[in-house]
């Protein structure tokens, strides 16, 4: 039987270690007292040591982790809520800033409009003044021109009359005649225009 030891020593030991008293088949399914005692000792060690030292430590570790995870989750929830509040505040501030900016722009626009209107009004006023002054100047120029024309026409008329009547007439008489003529002409002009 020793050959078995070459590969399967466990079988060899079993074969060589067989008790001299041949056990019956029933012994296979009945607990042997010595094995029962050592089995009980072994399991008692397992039961005692694991329940006294191993399981409580593992439970502690698991509970600590659960607590930590729970704490982390709650902290995360708190942070999330705070972040949301912060976000809302920022959005509110942003909205306020936008309103403020719009208000400022609107004010600026209104001021610009006002300035534009003022400038236009001033320009119009100046333009009117210039126009008025120009009209007055034209009127004065016209009056002066008329005066000059009148004088020139009188002179030319006298010269013409002298040529026609062949004699000179004195200056005051000439002047009187011309004025009378002009009045007539003016009267004819007014009469025809009427």
């Amino acid at each position, binding site marked *: 039987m020793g050959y078995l030891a070459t590969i399967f020593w466990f079988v060899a030991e079993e*074969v060589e270690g*067989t008790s001299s008293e041949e056990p019956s088949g029933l012994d296979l399914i009945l*607990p042997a007292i*010595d094995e029962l*005692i*050592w089995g009980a*000792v072994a399991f008692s060690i397992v039961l005692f040591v*694991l329940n006294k030292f*191993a399981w409580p430590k*593992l439970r502690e570790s698991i509970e600590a982790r659960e607590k930590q995870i729970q704490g982390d989750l709650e902290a995360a929830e708190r942070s999330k809520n705070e972040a949301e509040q912060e976000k809302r505040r920022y959005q509110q501030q942003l909205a306020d800033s936008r309103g403020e900016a719009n208000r400022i722009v609107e004010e600026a626009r209104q001021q610009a409009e006002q300035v534009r209107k003022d400038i236009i009004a001033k320009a119009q006023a100046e333009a009117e003044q210039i126009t008025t002054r120009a009209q007055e100047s034209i009127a004065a120029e016209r009056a002066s021109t008329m005066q000059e024309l009148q004088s020139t026409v009188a002179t030319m008329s006298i010269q013409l009359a002298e040529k026609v009547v062949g004699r000179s007439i004195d200056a005051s008489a000439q002047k009187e005649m011309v004025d009378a003529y002009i009045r007539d002409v003016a009267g004819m002009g007014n009469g025809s225009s009427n």
Partner: protein
Amino acid sequence: MVLALELDINHLFFWDPLLFEGTPYELNRVGILSLLAAALCVGFFLYGAAKKALVPKGAGNLAETLYLFVRNNIAIDVIGPEGAKYAGYLASVFFFILFSNVLAILPGIHFAPTSRMAIPFMLAILTWIIFNVVGVIKQGLGGYLKGTLFPPGVPKAVYILLTPIEFFSVFVVRPLTLMVRLLANLMAGHVLLTIFFLFTHEFLVTNIGPTAPLGLVTLAVATALMMLEMLVVVMQAYIFTMLSAFYIAEAVHGHGAEDHLTHDEPAHETPHEDRRPQLEGVAA
């Protein structure tokens, strides 16, 4: 060709004492392996539990996962929230059986102390004591016996037949099946592995010749059986612990009272009563 293969079944299971010969506490190989299994089990979990870390790694993580598996998936799942109280015992049973069973496939040892009756017997009797004591404490002696022997919702005449069956089933068959199931599975595994490895040895070493290919076949079968045995050693530890938990659950909640489980937990798709026959079927 007739093979001269000698195999006496007694050679596989009976051992001469190594220490304390002639006393009732003789220490033979079974005793030593029982102590070895206990030492491995205790050593592993003490080592795992000693590793303090918020997120454990390696042995610490494995120890914690294994303990949690028994506590949550067996004790609490089967017994309910109260099951946490029994998790210590159930986990000790589970891992002691597991470490003992694993020796069956550990190279150099190839023998599980659970393939001898002592440990299955002891654990089954312990479970029997526990579930009966729990039943009496929780329901009172009268209530426990009444609930067990006279299940409600049955016509009175049927009790004539049912009560002896229930008595036999709960107080005799339960511990008996627990111990025999574990013993038989491990014993059968041991015998099968030995036979196939002996044949392999016979064909490939002792009588090498034209039958050598047969040795390859038996080697392949032995390898497959080894893998099957890996499954069996875990399954048997699980089944023993699971059934112990079922029996304790019944003692805690009364006969047939499986509604203690909260149905909002998705893991509880089937009440434990529905799963027990399946487990007992697998065990056979």
